[in-house]
């Protein structure tokens, strides 16, 4: 079995170490980026959900309008938390 010369072995080990180090750094950085992204997505998701809920409330109200009883006051639900 042919043994690799010492200097080449050193180079190989150094490359492997640096590669692992680099991969680790990027992995941690990517994790951090992902976490921040998830947080932002959560915030956006929450805001979307709030808006969807408000739309749903409005729709429900409007759907409750009875053509026979003309209950418009019940159908038009004002949502004061919506900042126009």
């Amino acid at each position, binding site marked *: 079995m042919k043994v690799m*010369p010492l*200097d*080449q072995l050193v*180079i*190989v080990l*150094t*490359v492997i170490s*640096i*590669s692992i180090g*680099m*991969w680790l750094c*990027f992995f941690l*950085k*990517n994790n951090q*980026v*992902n976490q921040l*992204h998830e947080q*932002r*997505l959560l915030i*956006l*998701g929450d*805001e*979307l959900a709030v*808006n*969807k809920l*408000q*739309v749903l409330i*409005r729709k429900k109200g*409007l*759907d409750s*309008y*009875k*053509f*026979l009883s*003309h209950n*418009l*006051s019940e*159908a*038009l*639900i*004002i*949502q004061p938390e*919506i*900042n*126009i």
Partner: protein
Amino acid sequence: MRYVFLVIFGLFSTITLAQANSVLNTLLEKAFKSKDSSDYYFSQANKSISTKSDSANYLYYKFYSAYNKDQIDSSLFYSERVRPLLQDLDSLERLRKVFLETHYVHLNRGNYDEALKSIQDALTLAERLKDTAMISLHNSDKAVIYHDFEDYEKGVEYGKKAYAIMDKATNKNYKYLIIANNAIGINFDDWKKPDSALFYHYKNLDLLKKVDDSIYYGFVFNNIGNTLLKEKKYSEAKKIINRSLVINKIRKRDYNLATNYTNLATIAYEEGENTLAKTYFLEANNFAQQSKSIEKTRDVLQKEALFYKKIGDYRRSLNKQEAFYLLRDSIFNIERAEKVVELETKYETEKKEKDLAETRANLAESKLKIKQKNSYIFGSLALAVLLALAGYLFYSQQKLKNRQLQKEGELKAALYKIETQNKLQEQRLRISRDLHDNIGSQLTFIISSINNLKYGFKDMGDKLSERLSGISVFTSQTIYELRDTIWAMNKNNITWEDLQARISNFINTANRAEDKISFNFSIAEGLDLDEIFSSVQGMNIYRIIQEAVNNSLKYAAASSVSVSVSKIDDTYKVEIKDDGSGFDESTIEKGNGLANIRKRAKDLGGTAKIISDLGEGTTVVVSFDA
């Protein structure tokens, strides 16, 4: 200030030393050149010696002075003393010269082993100094030693080596080519190969034309003459030897003159001129003694022995022969021969070991260079791999960030859209509400006022009461219309499914109110319940059905009412049918109901057909495009 003094002191010392050196050199030069006052100058010079270099210089001059005066023992003495100093001072060129001259001393004494050792040392130094001319010369010197030792084959070998070295050199010097050819020639000559000997000697005649000082090369003519003499070409030999004699007389070369006279003596007795031969032999002996060369003295004795034998003087011949053998045996003995071989072997071994070491060093250097090159390549590859990896990782990260940004962007866009719509819808709703509250309340006030009027003025006429009731109903209707409009404005769209639910709801309410009438509501299969209408359209469809059903309930006295919705090609058909009494449109008192149905159908972009005959029931068909 201190440094200035130091510099001045250093400068002064250097000048003083240089001056002292100069004085010593001057004295030594004078000692070397002077014949009578040499000792005086040497003693003066001895007083000026202060350094190792001075001692070496002094001894060097002493050696040369003794050598030039043929003071053999003294020259050997100083040679022994000066060599270690020159070695220590790394004065290689001077050391080489000392070895060269020492070898001549030993050669003249017939100490061939010592001569060979000295010339090998000189050769080693010449190789170190990379002096091609001296390397060639010392190989020629070795060739001469082997000639004197009668090992002619080795002599020829070294002569040819000397020639090849000088011939290949960039600084070709014909002098050393001549010397090499001469060494080969004399070896071939005594090896009894006259043709080969003459070949090399005649080559020198051509080379003589290329040198500046041909007077130095008297030995060339003598050696040619010597070979011709052995070939018994006496006349030719005599001419050429005489030419050599003239040159050697001018140069006062004792050894060569001894050779010339020996050859001339041989020619003389071969030609029968015995008296002349004796004269020549006398001269030969004189010069041989003066040259202090045992080899030459031996050579003259041998030739004399042959001469006396030839002329019949056997006693003299025997004396000469015995003297010759005595001299020869002192030179040649087994021990000396073995020592020469041993020295030669030792030198060749050392040379081979040196070459081997050099080759190994070159190989090691090449291996190291290859190893370094490999390391560079490996390192470059490793760097390339790392850069590629870094690039890939960075690219992946950027890609991830881009994907995330894109996703966030989409989400933000969706949020912005829904927020905007939400706000718009909310604003519309609030405006609608305000509108309804304001107008609705005002209309309600009108109704209330009218009712109060009716209540307040109980004795008003029927017509007025009816009129007021009509206004009240109209106003109520207006409120409902307002509410429907406001609702439709906010609702945006409605599906068939939703509409179906509302219509079903209405039908069920009507059914509960009029339980004797059977109601039927159907939507054709295949109708897409998810199809979207605007709320206004949905409202209109509903109101048409509501109006038609209410009319059936109010006026038709029907037992069954059916409502059906279908789609043929791209046309919707809403049909409200009852089995009531029917009517003649031309005869009835027209209210708003049928007009509303037609108006609403027109708003849908379609038409309304009212088919009714007395006693046949009524069918209201509303058609509009999908």
